[in-house]
């Protein structure tokens, strides 16, 4: 498939992001699968092995996110210049996966509207941001940092914003001071944080009580990944209301990952029109009915130069409207035997 064909697909995807027409999803998905099967040799071999291109995008072979650690799933040649290389945190399995992104056009086109709608409740006015996510300058290979930094350019009151995650970890004192200052200033703020950074803050600053001004919002993303104690969502929301004065409705979960271009938001999580969330049976990879727990799978139209059908390691349940509630990480293979992980053996790089 030619560069011209890719350019046509890109244009069609950008048009879809601007004016989504859900009934066109299936056609776009089929064209994208055909492009990816041709442009990504490993994915092409997978499709061929599983019987060729499917008529229905739901029948496309799902690529487990782990494969980004082993295979370069990118349409661009290995020696080509790319606009970004995003890497996983590596905390689940030690090794870090990587996604090379030759072209950030789709990334930049899609990220703002869902964020504004869900996290900012539709209010695009520039407010002070307090970010416990590191800035792009400190974490150039983090897709989350890329997203938050890019959004901040357009949406944050940058002079009044604070970034308190440093290369050495969370600056607890500076973060607590920033919350206290925001509480005193009386101007609504937007807080961007991962779950583990937030719990670390609450634990490390037990005296922190800084009711944030009404209208403040929080984007909360990610699990705990063993970096802090794990807290149930109910307990975390209770602590946030108690110590930061944030009602549950102001705390908006975000679901994204290095391997995806798009993000879902809300409680339950709602995907934008270009991302389909599925819950599948771990054995058959077939869709489960609403209410049944299974593995979360995604088809992200905007993963144009990588792979669109992705199988995550998360457990979840869809409701009748296709919205997702996460149930944590899927348990892996029961550890039986004395087998070491590759990381323990020191036979893999990071």
């Amino acid at each position, binding site marked *: 498939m030619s560069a011209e064909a890719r350019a046509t697909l890109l244009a069609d995807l950008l048009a879809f992001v601007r004016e989504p027409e859900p009934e066109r999803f299936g056609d776009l998905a089929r064209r994208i699968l055909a492009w990816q099967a041709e442009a990504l040799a490993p994915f092409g071999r997978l499709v061929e092995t599983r019987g060729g291109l499917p008529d229905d995008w739901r029948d496309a072979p799902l690529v487990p996110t*782990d494969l980004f650690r082993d295979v370069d799933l990118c349409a661009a040649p290995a020696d080509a210049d790319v606009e970004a290389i995003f890497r996983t945190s590596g905390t689940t399995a030690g090794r870090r996966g990587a996604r090379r992104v030759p072209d950030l056009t789709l990334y930049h086109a899609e990220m703002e509207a869902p964020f504004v709608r869900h996290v900012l409740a539709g209010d695009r006015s520039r407010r002070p941001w307090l970010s416990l996510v590191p800035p792009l300058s400190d974490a150039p290979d983090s897709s989350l940092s890329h997203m938050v930094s890019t959004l901040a350019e357009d949406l944050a009151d940058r002079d009044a914003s604070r970034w308190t995650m440093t290369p050495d970890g969370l600056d607890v004192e500076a973060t607590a001071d920033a919350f206290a200052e925001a509480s005193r200033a009386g101007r609504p703020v937007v807080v961007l944080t991962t779950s583990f950074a937030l719990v670390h803050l609450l634990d490390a600053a037990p005296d922190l009580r800084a009711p944030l001004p009404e209208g403040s919002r929080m984007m909360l993303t990610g699990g705990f990944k063993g970096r802090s104690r794990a807290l149930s969502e109910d307990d975390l929301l209770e602590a946030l209301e108690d110590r930061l004065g944030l009602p549950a409705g102001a705390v908006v979960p975000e679901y994204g990952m290095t391997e995806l271009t798009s993000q879902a938001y809300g409680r339950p999580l709602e995907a934008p029109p270009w991302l389909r969330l599925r819950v599948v049976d*771990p054995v058959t990879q077939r869709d489960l009915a609403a209410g049944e727990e299974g593995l979360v799978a995604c088809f992200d139209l905007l993963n144009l130069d990588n792979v669109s059908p992705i199988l995550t390691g998360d457990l979840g349940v869809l409701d009748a409207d296709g919205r997702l509630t996460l149930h944590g990480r899927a348990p*892996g*293979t*029961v550890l*039986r*035997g*004395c087998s070491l992980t590759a990381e*323990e*053996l020191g036979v893999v790089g990071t």
Partner: protein
Amino acid sequence: MRLLALADLDRGPGRRLLEATVAMGFSAPVARAGLRAETDAWRAPGALDAVLSELPPDLPESRLPRTVLVLAAGTLPASAMRSTLLARLLGARVLVKPATGQEALAEALAAADPAVEARPFPSSDRTALRAAIAEADAVVVLGSDATVEAVRAETPADRAFVGYGHRLSVACLREVDDPALGGLARDLCAWDQAGCLSPQVAWVEGDPAEVAPRLADAVREVERDLPMSLPREAARDRLAARTLGEMTGAAIETDTALLVALPDSAFRPSPGLRTLWLLRADPDALRPIAPHLSTIGYAGRKGGAPTPDRVRVCDLGEMQRPPLAWLHDGRPNLLPMLKPAREG
């Protein structure tokens, strides 16, 4: 030894041991075959004499441990069973602390011999651990490196301590013929690839993708007698391994096993449950994992690999059948459990 009553898996304590093993997640045929292999090792001609020959003829009775604490791994029963029997060979009373949820295993061992006592307690219960250690002259730990180190830290310096931590095993097919493939299939299916002695990868001469279908045929022969059900929680790891093979090499699934041929030689850990990586032969591929190696199963010429002397070398088909006198991790079996000699 009374514990050899365990060899009868159809009645009495042997049956309890079989049931406890099945409760660990193994099919009855796999459990039966694995336990039989272990009891066969004890009953092999000359086996007891060979292991007892470790002891010096003038060993004073004062050095024999009166009580040995065995902390079992949650993997398969053979290692705990062997450690318990070795301690009994020294005449010691044995306290068996089972892995969480595997109390029946310790109870089965205890049912065979009044000198063996099940001592279940939560792994996080430091007080119970210290109390058990206080009763023992020797402590034997089977488990993760972290577990071994945690127990070592609790063990007073005047007690004998024997820790068996993480190890892994691999196969090298320098000749690819039917006996070699049959042996590898048996090694893969024994104990469902759990434990330190199961092959995680097989380095093969030639193209791994050409060996995979032949090995699959051999596995199909073995799995008829040794069935396994893949746990639901393992399905995703299995799919990831299969997909990697389909993307970069080849993947063949049998009723129970997954054989993945990859184009490179670098060791990679198996997700277990009969998932085997088939890699191109490369003598240097063993080097990075040499410190962690337990056993290398060979077909064809043995040895010549850059590995420590303590690494066990055997024929394919024998990987999960270590003889009684095998020096586990390169150490004698009985001497490390003796009480330290007093000077003067």
